[in-house]
Each structure stands twice: as structure tokens, then as C-alpha cells.
């Protein structure tokens, strides 16, 4: 018996979250021959630096509350903050200050409410009230905050990807992206679905740096009718050789782009991802989700979290507000 490490810090789960021998959920026929007939490793020789921008977001539940109402009874509410932004990696890496956005939300499942202003003067914060009918418990509230963050990321991605002099990388699958630009790639940090069968997965063990699998096509879910209607092209690459102690799949990542681009364009994007991403990947010790959380993204997350403000301070502000005025909402 041999043990192999998975690289993420255990608090963050694992980059491989599915059953290793899981049978694929039916997503329609995955075509592994779209790029070439044989399922074999593709080596990318070109090593030019390519400008890339990566979008990411953070969210934080500030305070959970219960709204007491004579009519509606007791329902859950959540004060939450989220921030999204982008980092550009060209000659130097820089946080794109103009893209940074912070939103404060009060999510609840009750009747519509006006925004809630907390604090005074320069330090006041407006929490936009949003009614989320599903958010009837704390977990769902948190989930809807996560969804709001993904929405904000998507929004920023569609905006930034219009500039096709750079590749735009988005955290997570491209599924919900509306009218994105041509050069956009989604990267999936946590693999929950392989899309390729066990036999094909053997190729992943052989991948080296500068190498990727051939493209494979994932058909769209029929009910989604947007830019994704033509499905997605996807591929795997190796971010980093982690050494013998780690499981070989620990350094592998799945990527995808729109099925609406031509196969030639998709090949170029896949090759470019091999040129860009391994250099940006983090080392174990550098980031809790190394190597999948890219170094510039780790920094972007720090900046975004910082923009959310000090959690203790916010908590105190909200508690004070609720303590003084909670009954008057």
C-alpha cells in the first residue's frame, strides 16, 4: 500500500473531491476526438509570455440575524460583504484597482426592505436589502451570498474579456457567463467531475509541465440557452511537479473555454494556458490551496478581503446598529 498526499491544506478540502472511480454523471456524449484522433499528450513548445488577467472574488458573512415580524414570524437574515476584482500579469503583476468592487448586502426571505445604512459620516456603509425567497435558513443565506459573488465575478469577466489582447481567466466553470469575449478560460480548482472515463484519465498521470491533454468537447445542458448552447471545450494540464510524496493528480487542473469558438481558436487558448498558468501556480507552503490557487490570485484575495474591512470592526458596527435601532426596521 502506498500513501500519497493531496496538496491543499485540509481546512480547504481537496482539489479532487469526487470518488476516484466515480461513473460519470450523464452530461451527454463527451467527444475526446475534437482536436485529434488519438488521446495523447500534447507538448507546448512556445514559451512567450502572454498577458493574462485573472478575476476572483471573496465574500464574508458578517452577522446572521433573525427578523421578527408580527405578520411573517421569525425569518433568517444575513449581513454579508463581497468583493470582486482582477489582477493583470504582464511585465509586472498588478491589481487592477479600477476593477475592485465591494458590495454590502442584507439577504433575507421576508418582504422587500429598503437599504440599511450602518455607521455615520465617512464610515457609513449601505447594506443593500435583497429578498432571496430560498434563503430560509443560515446555510441557504450563505449560499445565496456566494451566488451574488459569482454573479459579480461573471459580470466583471464579461466586461474585461472584451479586451482580447489579454486572456481572461475566471475562477470556476464558464456555465453562467453571458456573451463573453473570445479569449476567456475558466479554471476549475476543485475537480468534482472528470468528464473523461477512467481509461482516458490515465493520460493525466503522464502529463508534464508544458503539456496538456487534447481538447475534449462537453455538450451543453439543454435547458441553458445562452452562449454556452454550443457546449464547452475542455482540457487538463499539469501546474506543478509536486514530488514523490504527492499524488500525481494533485498538480493537475481542468480548464474550459466556450464551445462557440472555433476548434482552432480553442487549441490556441489551450496552448496559451499551458504557457501562462504553471508559472503562476503556487508552491505548497505559499498558499493553502497550492498549486491551484495562483500566486497573483492569492494576493488579489488578500487585497479583496482587506477591502471588506476589519471583520471585528464590522461586526461591532452592525451589533451596535442592531442594538440601538433593530426594532425600527
Amino acid at each position, binding site marked *: 500500500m502506498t500513501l500519497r498526499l493531496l496538496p491543499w491544506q485540509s481546512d480547504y478540502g481537496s482539489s479532487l473531491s469526487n470518488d476516484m472511480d466515480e461513473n460519470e454523471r450523464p452530461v451527454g456524449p463527451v467527444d475526446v476526438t475534437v482536436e485529434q484522433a488519438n488521446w495523447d499528450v500534447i507538448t507546448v513548445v512556445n514559451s512567450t509570455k502572454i498577458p493574462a488577467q485573472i478575476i476572483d472574488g471573496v465574500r464574508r458573512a458578517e452577522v446572521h440575524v433573525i427578523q421578527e415580524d408580527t405578520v411573517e414570524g421569525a425569518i433568517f437574515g444575513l449581513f454579508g460583504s463581497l468583493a470582486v476584482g482582477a489582477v493583470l*500579469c*504582464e511585465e*509586472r*503583476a498588478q491589481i487592477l484597482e479600477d476593477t475592485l468592487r465591494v458590495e454590502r448586502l442584507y439577504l433575507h426571505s421576508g418582504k422587500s426592505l429598503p437599504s440599511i445604512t450602518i455607521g455615520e459620516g465617512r464610515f457609513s456603509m449601505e447594506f443593500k436589502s435583497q429578498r432571496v425567497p430560498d434563503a430560509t435558513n443560515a446555510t441557504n443565506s450563505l449560499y445565496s451570498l456566494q451566488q451574488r459573488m459569482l454573479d459579480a465575478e461573471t459580470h466583471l469577466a464579461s466586461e474585461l474579456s472584451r479586451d482580447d489582447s489579454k486572456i481572461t481567466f475566471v475562477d470556476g466553470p464558464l456555465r453562467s457567463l453571458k456573451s463573453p469575449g473570445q479569449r476567456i478560460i475558466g479554471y476549475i480548482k476543485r475537480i468534482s467531475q472528470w468528464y473523461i472515463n477512467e481509461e482516458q484519465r490515465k493520460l493525466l498521470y503522464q502529463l508534464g509541465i508544458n503539456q496538456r491533454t487534447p481538447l475534449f468537447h462537453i455538450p451543453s445542458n439543454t435547458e441553458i440557452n445562452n452562449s454556452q448552447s454550443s457546449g464547452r471545450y475542455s482540457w487538463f494540464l499539469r501546474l506543478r511537479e509536486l514530488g514523490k510524496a504527492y499524488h500525481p493528480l494533485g498538480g493537475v487542473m481542468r480548464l474550459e473555454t466556450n464551445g462557440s469558438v472555433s476548434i482552432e481558436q480553442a487549441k490556441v487558448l489551450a496552448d496559451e494556458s499551458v504557457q501562462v498558468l504553471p*508559472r503562476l501556480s503556487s508552491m505548497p507552503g*505559499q498558499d493553502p490551496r497550492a498549486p491551484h490557487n495562483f*500566486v*497573483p490570485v492569492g*494576493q*488579489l484575495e488578500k487585497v479583496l478581503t482587506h477591502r471588506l474591512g476589519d471583520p471585528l470592526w464590522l461586526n461591532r458596527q452592525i451589533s451596535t446598529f442592531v442594538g440601538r435601532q433593530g426594532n425600527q426596521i
Partner: protein
Amino acid sequence: MTSYDGSEEKFKGYVLGTEQDSAKPLEFSVFVAPGQYLQLDDVVHVATSLPNGGTPIDIYGVVDEVIAKHEGVQLTSDVALVNEGILPANSVVSAHVSVTRVEPEIYIPPTPGDIVNIATVDKTNGDKDHREIALFFDNMQKKIPLGYSRDDEVIYGNLDFLTGISGAHVNISGISGVATKTSYATYLLYALFSGKLLEHNSKSYIFNVKDESLLWLDRRNLKMDSDIKDKYAILGIAAPGAFAQVDFFSPVRKKGDVSSSASKTTTAFHWSIKEFCDERYLRFLFSEADTDQTQIHLLIDSVSNHLASAVRKGGASVSINGKGIKTFDALVQEIASELDDDNSNWKGRGSAAASQGTINAFMRRLNSIKEDVYFIRDPEEAETQSGIRPSKQVNVINLHSLRDRAQRFVVGVLLDKLIKDREKGADRSPFFLVVDELNKYAPREGTSPIKEILIDIAERGRSLGIILIGAQQTASEVEPRVVGNAAFRVVGRLDGAEVERNEYRFLRNSSLKQRATQLKPGSMLIQQPEVPVPLLVQFPMPSWATRQEEAGKAEDADKDAQKTQEKLDKIL
């Protein structure tokens, strides 16, 4: 870099209030906005106010540390990632400020976010000079230019703390050769005398113990160029040149001629046997610091008493047992025979009499020194006075041809005489003593007659108008009372081990201490009583010659000095 004028180049920083760099009443840090800089020794000003828009408070300070870092970068190797364009990071600069003054004295910290300015003249506020206030120059009724800062602004000292009114004495430490201790001491004298900062009859002794560098003070330095003149101009010295009033004193030669080749104006000095006996100078022949030789000191006292009474018997000259004594050699012989004579009471009486061992030790030392103090003898025809009578402002006592013990004798005798004269008379005008190698004259361990005198001067000299400008390589080897009484503490380049000693605690923090080990010639750190932080001061190259090659002709010097004098007369 200007300030308060609203221009784009105006320096602007903000008071920091992070967990790590919180603002305190006596120290705070400044975020230096991108595209600007603060450097060590910059003088800054923060205008803050009490809460609810109350009393405005001016906080002043001096930058003593500047820190640059990548923000948000943790790992050592991250710097490479930043340069490779992988890790986004900002370079940020912050500076640490030690507060020098708070006006009015309400000690609150500046509010984080308050704007920090370079302290300078505020044109928008009635030309209020914030730099002067920051460094307490506004409180100084009489000022001496201690030197200039690196941005060519004068740094003043309070003259009252130099002339004995509020305090006295200067102590200078530093490594020989690079610390420019003697140059700085001489510069201070020049600033005092040429600036007419003193009473008319102020004088000084400079002991020239090493080379001939102090024997050209009366000559203009030919190597002085317009740049150096500009530096003097900053200090308010319009026409730098030679010292105006200088006398040089050298010991007589054995044959009676003047010893030094340096200057035609050298005056020969000697001490007559009569003065030697009368003033009990014998003890200064035994002035190497001893710790356990109490017996020999009793013997020295006893012999001194008998020599003094021999003078009274002899009247104009000294005679012992009817023999007239003309030379030091003869004197030593008489002392020897008295101590050898069992019937003589010179060795002391009864049980207090010195043992033969003590007498042997005493005579051994006396015999070994007699060749070195050949200048103790009765005058030959051409010579008139015994001792040294200072009449000009600067009196250079040239001892470099003498051996160490003879140098100590001269220094001891002159200091002793100075104190006695002052105690007798009413003259309290400042008399400056420039003494190098204090570690030799007032060592930390042991006792010696000169050390006692120097402690006396350090503790009491102020009331007599005697001001010690002392210097040594290492203050840690000098009697603490001598160093501790100095109002002005000056360090040039220090040895790295020395700077860690307690004597340099006034340098406060490790950054200043480190700088003390890196000071270049011509740069000193100065602590003075009213300014709570040591200031970095530079002083110009001497405008007087320090070597024969630099020396202008003597006539030039006279003319130059005259011109200087005239110009200054006009200015003042």
C-alpha cells in the same frame, strides 16, 4: 523640496495608525506618499488639534528611520515573483519620527491620517519658522553654529550652555584619524572667536600633543575654495580664514633656543626652580594614574612642603642647606641626599616616615623623568618669565616634542595655575581648554593629580568660567564625572564595540548607533541639553592651515584676519 506653498512638489506624508506603527506622543511613523521621499534627519511638522476642533497643537520631530517594503509580501522568495510579474505588490515607504517638541505642551499622539510636512518657513502663517521651533533654536538667546545639516541648513547650539551661564563643557568621542575630533574642537573655537560670540578677554589653551597640525592656526588655508567658503557662509562666517589672535608656546630647548620649526612667533616657556618649589609642582611629575601608591603620595607631599619652605628661606631663589639650586638636576640631588639622611625629616616623621622601598621608588621615578623635564630650570639671560602667560585668544601649547610624562606635567601645571588664578581673581570670562586624549589625563580607573583637576573643572569649572572641550577615542575609558558634566556630547565615527557602551546611551536607538559607526570625516552627531534628539551636523574643512603646504604667508594671514575682523565688525 518646499512645503506649505501649495505647489505640486510639496512633500506630503500621513501619520500612520496601524497596529504595528501606532502613533504615540513621543514617536510616530509616517507613510511617505509615492513619488516623494523622506530621509534620515529630515525635520518634520504635524499640525493636529485637540478633539472637537479645539486647541491647535504643533508636533515636531526628526526622522530617525526610513523603511521601504513590499506590502503584503511574506516569503523571502516573493521578491523574485514580484519582479517576474507573478506576484502583485506595492513598494511602500514609511519613516519613523522621534518627537522633539510639542507646542503647546499637551502630549497627545498625532491623529492617524494627519498630514506630515517638512518643517520649514510657513509663508501662509506669518513666516513662522517651524524648523527653528522643532530644534528649539527659537529659545536660544545666543546661538553658536554647531555646523550645517545635510540639506545645508544651520544647526545651532545654545551658547549659554557652552559659556557656563546655563551649562558648560563639550565632550567629543571618536576614532583617531576619521572622527576629526581636533578639527571639530578647533572649528568650535573658530566659530566662537571669529563670530565675536564671547567677551573680549575670552581665551583658550589648545594642547598640541601629536603632530604639528595645530601650529598653523594663524595661517590661511591655501586649499580653501569657494565651495568651502559657501559652507562657512551658511554658518554666518562671511570671510573664513586664519585665527586672528594666536600665540604659540613651546618648551625651551636644552641650549636655550626655541624648539619648533613651525612658526616664527613661537614663545619659549620654562618653569623656574623657584616656581616649581613654591607652587608644589612636584606632584605633577607623578601624574600617571595610580591605584595603590598612597605611601608615595605621602612622601611627595612631605618633599613638596620642604621644597616650598626652602623657597621662603631662600627669597628670590631656592636654597637648600645653604646651597643655591639653579637646575632641576641639582634639585633632584638635594632631594636624594635629604632622603638619604637619617637625621632629615623630609621622609616624614616617626611612624609616618616613608619606608626605604617607597623612597627608592620615588627616587627611581624622579631620576628617570628629570631628563624629560629639562625645561624646569632657572632662567638664562634672554628669558624673562617663568611659566606661560596667555595674552591672546588662542594659545597653542606645543608639546609634541615632549615625552608623555613631560606633557602631563605641563598640562597639569597649566590647569592647576588656571584654576588658582581664577579662584583668586574675579575674571569669569570663558577660558576654553582643548584637551585631547582625556582617557590619559582623566582615566576611568585610578587617581592622579591631573584627573582630580579635570574632575574639579568638570564639576566646578562652569562657575570659574573654565570650559573643557575634551576629546578621546573612547568615552568609556574616561572618568564618568568628566564626560557626564559635558553639556554638549559629540561623537564622530565610533568603533562598533564602543558604541554599545553606556556612555553613548544618548544615541537612543540602534539606527543612530549604527550611523555613528559610519560617520564620515566632517560629520558628527551632537546631543545638546535642550534638543531631545542627537542631530547630525557637518562642519566645513578648516579655513586655517593644518600643514605647512596649506599655509599662506604670515602677512597674508595677518591681512586676512584683519579683513575678517573688519567684515565681521561691519556685520555685527
